[in-house]
């Protein structure tokens, strides 16, 4: 093992040990990434489901004003709506005017008010007065509208039948034949790849950038502020070795965080895949390796860039002030890249910094290896990563780093 490699390894090891000895760091880089997607994809739907079930079980109070219909009344009652008959407001010109009922809704005396006015033999006007900021009122309105729809269908069918027409043929003359899903040539793995390509690159980019910030600041501006950098610079190692050691440490910590997040995501998807029609993505070995290369080169660039910015700062506060907004440089391209149409995308997009890697990840998750695109993003990204490393090296060679602030 060469001396240089041993030095870099020692620096990286020290940085990692020191970093992970802070329990807050362990929560930030292990627990949160690991639980983020399972919480989002599993716990949140479960919570929503439970809340919806709770709402479904509620009995709600509805006042019915105006024309009465037995059939509608029966179906509304079956939806756990307690119907009471009320008086239709005198001189009402507009059914949607809450008028004096507004206070009764606000006080919770009733959850919703159905107003129905017969305008012909088989025609009616209606409105549902509700308080949209109340869950109960919204739910009551929703149940009333659903039953009104079915009642309307029933009225239409009856009218058509009375006129000697077949309701199905009259209302739905052009129909799909067969299984709609079977008509899609994409496999479930490809469909899953498409779904993942819409957010995996964005998550990777944003998480890599954000999770590298804390260690990058701690190992650079933090060292300056704590007064440990001067002693480090007195050691018989070059500034490039120092940068490489710190880069390796930040990259390792970031990779662990991102890896755990992806692990959590895959677990959540696997859970969802067993419960829904969403499949596990299938990509070839070549696409997988290129994907890994894209992630690595992106990490090289981002970590070097963040180390450079943090080293440029004189204090942790200053580094945070500089790097906080710098994250927008990652977030905006990450968002924009999601809406670029991959079919027929112009090749120059693959040379735009950040966008190129994100597009590459999207393409590779769809198992598309387009040689021209790969060549452009690989070469341009290598150049950008090289530039970021060069810039970081410049910052690490600055003489004023010696003057610690402690």
């Amino acid at each position, binding site marked *: 093992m060469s001396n240089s490699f041993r030095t870099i390894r020692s620096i990286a090891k020290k940085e990692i040990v020191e970093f992970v000895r802070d329990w807050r760091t362990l929560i930030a880089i292990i627990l949160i990434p690991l639980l983020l997607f399972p919480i989002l994809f599993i716990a949140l739907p479960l919570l929503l489901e439970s809340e919806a079930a709770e709402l479904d079980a509620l009995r709600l109070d509805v006042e019915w004003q105006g024309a009465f219909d037995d059939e509608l009344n029966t179906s509304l009652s079956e939806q756990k709506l307690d119907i009471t008959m009320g008086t239709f407001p005198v001189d009402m010109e507009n059914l949607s005017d809450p008028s004096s009922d507004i206070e009764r809704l606000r006080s919770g005396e009733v959850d919703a008010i159905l107003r129905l006015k017969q305008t012909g033999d088989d025609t009616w006007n209606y409105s549902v007065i509700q308080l949209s900021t109340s869950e109960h009122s919204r739910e009551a309105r929703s149940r009333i509208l659903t039953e009104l729809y079915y009642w309307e269908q029933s009225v239409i069918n009856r009218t058509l039948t009375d006129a000697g027409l077949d309701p199905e043929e009259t209302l739905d003359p052009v129909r799909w034949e067969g299984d709609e899903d079977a008509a899609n040539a994409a496999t479930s793995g490809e469909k899953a790849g498409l779904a993942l390509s819409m957010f995996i690159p964005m998550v990777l980019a944003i998480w890599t950038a954000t999770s590298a910030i804390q260690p990058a600041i701690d190992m650079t501006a933090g060292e300056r502020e704590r007064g440990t*950098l001067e*002693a480090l610079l007195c*050691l018989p190692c070059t500034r490039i070795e120092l940068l490489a050691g710190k880069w390796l440490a930040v990259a390792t910590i970031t990779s662990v965080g991102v890896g755990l997040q992806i692990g959590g995501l895959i677990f959540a998807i696997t859970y969802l895949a067993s419960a829904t029609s969403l499949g596990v993505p299938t990509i070839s070995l070549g696409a997988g390796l290129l994907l890994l290369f894209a992630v690595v080169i992106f990490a090289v660039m981002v970590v070097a860039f963040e180390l450079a910015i943090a080293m440029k700062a004189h204090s942790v506060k200053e580094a945070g002030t500089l790097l906080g907004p710098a994250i927008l440089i990652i977030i905006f391209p990450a968002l924009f890249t999601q809406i670029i149409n991959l079919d027929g995308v112009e090749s120059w997009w693959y040379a735009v910094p950040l966008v190129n890697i994100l597009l590459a990840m999207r393409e590779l998750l769809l198992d598309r290896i387009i040689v021209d695109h790969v060549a452009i993003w690989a070469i341009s990204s290598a150049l950008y990563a090289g530039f970021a490393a060069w810039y970081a090296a410049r910052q690490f060679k600055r*003489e004023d780093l010696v003057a610690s602030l402690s």
Partner: protein
Amino acid sequence: MADALLSIEGVAKHFGDVEALSLIDLEINSGQVIGLVGGNGAGKTTLLRLMAGVMEPTNGSITFQGLPVTNMRSKLGVVPEATGLYHRLTAWENIRFHSRIHGIDDEVAWNRTAHFAKLLSIEDSLGRHTKGFSRGMRQKTALLRALAHGPDILLLDEPTAGLDVTSARTVRSLVGKLRDEGGTVIYSTHHLAEARQVCDRIIIVHNGTVRADGSPEDLMGQTGKESLEDAYVALTSDKARSRSEDNQKEGRIARWWRLFLTGRTPAVEVGEDE
């Protein structure tokens, strides 16, 4: 000279427009404890940093046994003023990290550390995290760290600053022991009594220049004074400048923003008394 351990020839150091050191010529021979004495902003720390090879001189050269000192940092042991210990590592882990970068085997480093730790009475604290260490404990640990790889020269930047009497005495005693064993120590301080007690040779640095260089007796004889303090005052009678680090350039935007927020500081009138 051929047998000089460290040679400083025509060294000047500028920070932008500020000349921190000018035309320093020194030779450091082995087996001596050399005191760098001077007030705040005199240039002691800058000179030590140049000797430690972490800064390059603007002019001149610094060589260790004929080779550029920047390539010979493994021969030096440095204790900066801030000590530079990692608080989440134990004392031994701090020492071992530095020894490994020096390419020293862990066992060798441990044996040397254990030897000096007994002299400094901190052998029981080597396994403790340095976060709770007192200033004295931190200083002693930094000393152990600087000694673990067996340096030819030890550079100490104000090693007793902020220490209690007992700790300062222990540190001085260790420096004396190192001298007795033939070691070379360069010791920056602004305490003349301490310099007289510990150092064989005193270099007085003032406003970035070497004002005097010799044994305490030489300096007193040179100035015709009876105490080292009087000799120092006589040699540094011109007004001391502000610290070089304080003269950092302020960017145009930063200056505009500062003036916008705080207004101008009124100039101090310097005139004749009424």
